[in-house]
């Protein structure tokens, strides 16, 4: 069975999603336990795969038993395996959280919701482990369609946001498809590794078609990950979607797209092409600086909790794109590490926002009024997430920022370092504002809405266990990722070290 672990990573949630669709209407109670069980299976399979990758190196899994350029293959190296573990882990935690939230928010469509939820995770995992450029497109569409639906199942404002997402997401995916077509027309292959070999063998790196393919693919992926000038779809979609949807889409969708960008830039085009021949790293790092600052400053202006967090995601995307394009080992390590750390910290804060929304029915940050006394454990979860987003030492966020800053210094991109620091400061301001409200309460003049849905006494009134557990588990994961950063970085380095960034740098 261990031989089949790579396939089982995504087959388990896939099969279960079909069963949920078939049986869920009749037996609504089985949706939740089946989903959680399948994701536990997926986590187990991906951890097994990660273990094998560490011991044996790259794993290749041929689907249908065909030779790679003919058939489709999974090629799993340290990068894939690590991201797959993060994706399935985040999926599992969000699934546990979903138990109450789905019943509260979409009561008559539970089975549809879980089917789409599992298919979304299947699509994301498939994107992470596949080694075929076109297959990536298909799975991109699986995850895109499910996320449109998961957002549109929300309340009124969510539908318009979902519509925008449909249009913009389709442009992004179509650009990606077009870029793959350009690569296919020049190389005749669709397997990522084979495309790279063909590019070298035919020596067509300086052909305009390859350049256009690179631009088109990169822009397509940027649209999907909401890199700053192309981010318009994100904040409203994530802010108004059902809370489980934003708890799963917020952490995963953008991170997986960043993984896709790294994979395509390094594996398909190669670092020589992207960094030496094109030499665009200055421009793109500047763009990411703008993204970081714009995201952070927009977040400052929000009073809606989830909208504020959505803008933080845009800033975080800026971190990672910038980190990749620093053209420096440390920057790349930092970016990959940040994918994992950020998946968990975004999950943490979105779970918090979801709990608050389900508990109080309000999306404003005034809903947090006096929460320290009412929900002490929930606030502990938030504190860890907030510290991680700010970058306070024992948490994962500190170490990823540390590597990113090192990369920025080593490659001489001081503007990036400064933007990172400013953004951390803004995060600190944002979260201390939340903590202040939660600890000291809102001033009486603003303390409206305290009476309408509020029937609970002043004593502790925690969220239910199924909501609290994933939040605290995520917080614990953040600490673990932070404390074991050396081991994780060792795994990442085994991926990064195969690329030489040549003479770039200072």
């Amino acid at each position, binding site marked *: 069975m261990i031989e089949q672990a790579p396939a089982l990573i995504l087959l388990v949630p896939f099969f279960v999603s*079909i069963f949920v*669709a078939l049986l869920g209407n009749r037996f609504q109670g089985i949706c939740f336990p089946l989903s959680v069980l399948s994701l536990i299976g997926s986590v187990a399979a991906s951890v097994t795969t990660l273990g094998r990758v560490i011991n044996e190196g790259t794993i290749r899994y041929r*689907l249908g038993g065909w030779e790679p350029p003919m058939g489709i293959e999974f090629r799993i190296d340290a990068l894939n395996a690590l991201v797959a573990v993060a994706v399935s882990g985040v999926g599992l935690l969000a699934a546990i959280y979903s138990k109450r939230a789905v019943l509260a928010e979409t009561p008559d469509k539970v089975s549809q919701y879980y089917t789409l939820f599992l298919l979304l995770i299947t699509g994301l995992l498939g994107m992470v482990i596949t080694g075929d450029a076109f*297959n990536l497109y298909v799975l991109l569409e699986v995850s895109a*369609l499910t996320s449109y*639906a998961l957002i549109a199942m929300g309340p009124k404002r969510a539908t318009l946001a979902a519509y925008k997402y449909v249009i913009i997401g389709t442009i992004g995916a179509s650009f990606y498809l077009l870029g793959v077509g350009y690569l296919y*027309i020049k190389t*005749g292959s669709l397997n990522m590794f084979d495309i790279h070999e063909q590019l070298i063998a035919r020596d067509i790196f300086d052909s305009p078609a390859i350049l256009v393919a690179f631009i088109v693919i990169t822009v397509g992926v940027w649209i999907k990950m909401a890199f700053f000038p192309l981010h318009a779809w994100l904040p409203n979609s994530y802010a108004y979607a059902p809370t489980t949807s934003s708890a799963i889409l917020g952490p995963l969708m953008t991170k997986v797209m960043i993984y896709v960008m790294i994979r395509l830039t390094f594996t398909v085009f190669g670092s020589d092409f992207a960094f030496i021949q094109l030499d665009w790293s200055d421009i793109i790092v500047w763009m990411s600086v703008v993204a970081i600052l714009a995201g952070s400053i927009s977040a400052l202006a929000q009073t809606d909790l989830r909208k504020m967090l959505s803008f933080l995601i845009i800033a975080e995307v800026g971190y990672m794109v910038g980190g990749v394009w620093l053209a420096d080992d440390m920057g790349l390590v930092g970016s990959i590490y940040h994918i994992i750390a950020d998946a968990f910290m975004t999950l943490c804060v979105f779970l918090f926002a979801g709990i608050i929304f389900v508990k109080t029915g309000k999306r404003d940050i005034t809903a947090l009024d006096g929460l320290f006394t009412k929900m002490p454990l929930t606030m502990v979860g938030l504190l860890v997430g907030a510290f991680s987003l700010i970058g306070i030492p024992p948490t994962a966020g500190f170490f990823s920022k540390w590597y990113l800053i090192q990369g920025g210094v080593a490659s001489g991109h001081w503007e990036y370092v400064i933007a990172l620091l400013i953004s951390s400061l803004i995060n600190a301001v944002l979260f201390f504002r939340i903590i202040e409200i939660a600890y000291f309460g809102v001033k009486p003049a603003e303390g409206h809405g305290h009476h309408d849905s509020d029937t609970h006494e002043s004593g502790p009134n925690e969220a239910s266990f199924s909501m609290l557990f994933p939040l605290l588990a995520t917080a614990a994961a953040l600490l673990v990722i932070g404390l074991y950063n050396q081991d994780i970085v060792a795994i990442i380095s085994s991926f990064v070290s195969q690329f030489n960034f040549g003479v770039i740098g200072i």
Partner: protein
Amino acid sequence: MSAVSDFPDWGDPNSPANSYRLSQHYVTETIHETSVPNMVTAVLADYRGYDTMFETVVIFTAGIAIIGILRRFGNDDKDAAKPTLYTKKPDLIIDTTCRLMIPIIQLFALYVIAHGHHSPGGGFQGGVIFGASFILLAVSRDLQAAQKWVPEKRILNLAGIGVLIYAGFGLGSLLLGQNFLDYAILHKIMPATPIEARSHSMLGVEIGVAFTVTAIMFSIYSNLASNGSMKEGL
């Protein structure tokens, strides 16, 4: 879009896409390796079968997504208040024509599905045609009449079973000790040689695809046409 100047000419057999061993292999070796004369079907359902499985999943997802977005369960006051427009008996000409057409369409759809690896056709095409026959019924009578034939629950079960048939072939090969979707190993449980097993599995897979496509096409139509209430169509 200056890259056009770099592309090969129209219909150039020596362009990289056409001359690379990938395409050549598909053209020259398909018959030997899978015993299927239709290369498109062979590449679709076997060489790139994993893609096609998720293609089926895309359709399935779309169906579930549309139900998730639009469907309104239970009695909605707004619909109940609306006077029904379809009390009149259906027009004789339309009714007779559809009675004649629908069986023929369905027969043709079955032919397209079953003959997919010898001539142009396959699960997607046949499934769409089959779904169209139900849509024709819904258009010519009304949605209720079509619902009698294919109620919503049956539609969903059909769609799920279709995906399961496809994935089941993959799972079967996985359980027999080969990689996912490696149909050749299925010769152990099929009366065929390994190569013919690929061909037979492709037929099975196409039938699964056809189930899903048929069901979801009608489901999409009926949800969109009735604005999610499943009561009255166009």
